């Protein structure tokens, strides 16, 4: 079972996405800020992160850089109310970008595409994803 981490300071967003992806058959974890997200990533096997940008204290751009430092192959979809262009400007080279006002149908598509690409990526690198995570842990 794939695990998705939803990082968002808005509780109702987390709750909605949790319901959506739980129903889709994923394991869903939540984090309301960068510190929590960091804890979850280091202590759980995460396949995909839905990352909000605008968060109090430490924002998503910093969390992205920090996470990518030790989890290069983690799928991260930036999820914000900023326009897609602005998101691409703020965080470069993310696996995908999602405008929260696009609706959950689009989100589901982007998540499943990212995860199948991720699987592909993992196969290519010979399962380095999991091993590397274990090493890091």
């Amino acid at each position: 079972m794939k695990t998705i981490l939803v990082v968002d300071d808005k509780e109702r967003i987390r709750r909605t996405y949790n319901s959506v992806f739980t129903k889709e058959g994923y394991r869903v974890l939540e984090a309301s800020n960068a510190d929590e997200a960091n804890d979850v990533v280091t202590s759980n096997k995460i396949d995909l992160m839905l990352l909000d940008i605008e968060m109090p204290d430490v924002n998503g751009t910093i969390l992205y850089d920090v996470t990518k430092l030790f989890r290069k192959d983690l799928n991260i979809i930036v999820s914000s109310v900023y326009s897609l262009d602005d998101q691409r400007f703020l965080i470069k080279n993310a696996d995908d970008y999602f405008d929260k006002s696009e609706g959950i149908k689009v989100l589901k598509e982007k998540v499943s595409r990212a995860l199948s690409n991720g699987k592909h990526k993992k196969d290519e690198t010979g399962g380095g994803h999991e091993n590397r995570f274990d090493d890091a842990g």
Partner: protein
Amino acid sequence: MRFNSIRFKASVLYSTIQIIILVVFSAVVFFSVRAMLYHDLNQDLKIKAEEVAGILSAYQQVQRVKEYPVRQILGILKGEGAAASQKMIIDELWRSQLEVLNLKNDFINILNINGRAVLSSNNFKKNVEDLFKKQFPFVQNDVIYKTLTSEGYQLRAINLPIKFYDSPLVIQIGTPVESISNILDGLLAFMIVTVIAFLLLTSFVGRIFVEDALRPVREVSDLANSISYKDLNQRIEEKEIDVEMKQLVTSFNSMINRLAQSFGHINEFSSYAAHELKTPLAIMRGEIELALEEDKTTEYYKNLLNGCLEEIDHMIKVIKDLLLLAKLDYKPEIFKFEKLALVPFLDEIYEHSKVLAETKKIKVRKDFPQKEIILNADKVHLRRLFFNILSNAIKFTPSRGSIDIKIALREAKCFIDITDTGKGISKGNLKRVFDKFFRVSDAQQQEESSVGLGLNIALSIAEAHGGKINVRSNLQQGTTFTVALPLA
């Protein structure tokens, strides 16, 4: 070149001044030279006339005959030579004198008291005689100079009265002014050519100077034309230009600076505003889409609708606050300033905040001086300022904490401190408390509907009153907001 351009006006002004100066200068030179030449000619004529008179008296002394010299001179002047051989020496003297005085081209006429010519030179023909009669009637007692003009030639003439054998005579001598006219004509022509050449040269050079002086104006307008909101970082170089132009360029550059700043603010602001308004929409959309995926219980739908209502309320609040903020910052006429007694005004606010703080059992204390403090203020907006700060303080102060309101007076200003015993604001966040839509994470969790514009609105109101708001904070001890307002 357009007629209503500064370049044209400057050139015309420059050329006009040049023309006036050159023409006046040339005229002064011309007339001085002319006067000088005529003065010399007059002197010459006078010397000639006096010499003629002298020779007449010399003959008189030698001959002691009344009639002789006149006839002699007449003969000599007529070129007949001396009649008597014993007078040869004197005749020779006379002839040589004629050479020296250069009288050959002059017209000599000697008149008696009745105005009748007693003696004339050979060349004193009918036309010359008429000219003299017409334009230069003899005057018995005065030395007179005059220029006689006839077709084709001009004469300068002298009228000199003398005594001859106790009877008065008048010597009139006319000399052609050809030489002087030639000099003056030459001078005039030279001056006209010089003035025109000088004018052409200076107007050309002047034009270059004017163009150079006005170059920054063109640069300013070119740049102004080329600037759009996308490239507000362009500036005109300020070095090597005149003081007046520097002022223009500096003002222009600082205007662009202000525009760039305003655009920056608007950009930032609209991006924030879009974010603030899109978030509740995203939440509602997600929740509604999720609810529509399958049938739910009535309770579920009720919760959903209540949640949507909350988000709608929040959006309305955001929009209201944004509109207010825009008004505070860009419509100063909404402020109605009047004399306001600060202590009774804050007493009222203090009483209200006690009621608001009661639910969290927060103690509100006041420390107001017992004297009259008068401000020039808009009561309605100032009340909003203090309530925004106080509701913030109540929000961040834990139950059974306290809030102090204190007034202090310094340097024609009053300082109102509002101190809470909340958990304080970190140094990094302290700089951002007046940023639009800034919220510290705790507030987020405690109260979802916080808009994040309250302190911004408070600051705008303080600034409209000529005041400001400072904040200092110690973590775990509390925060003090100080509102500084000028006294009336």
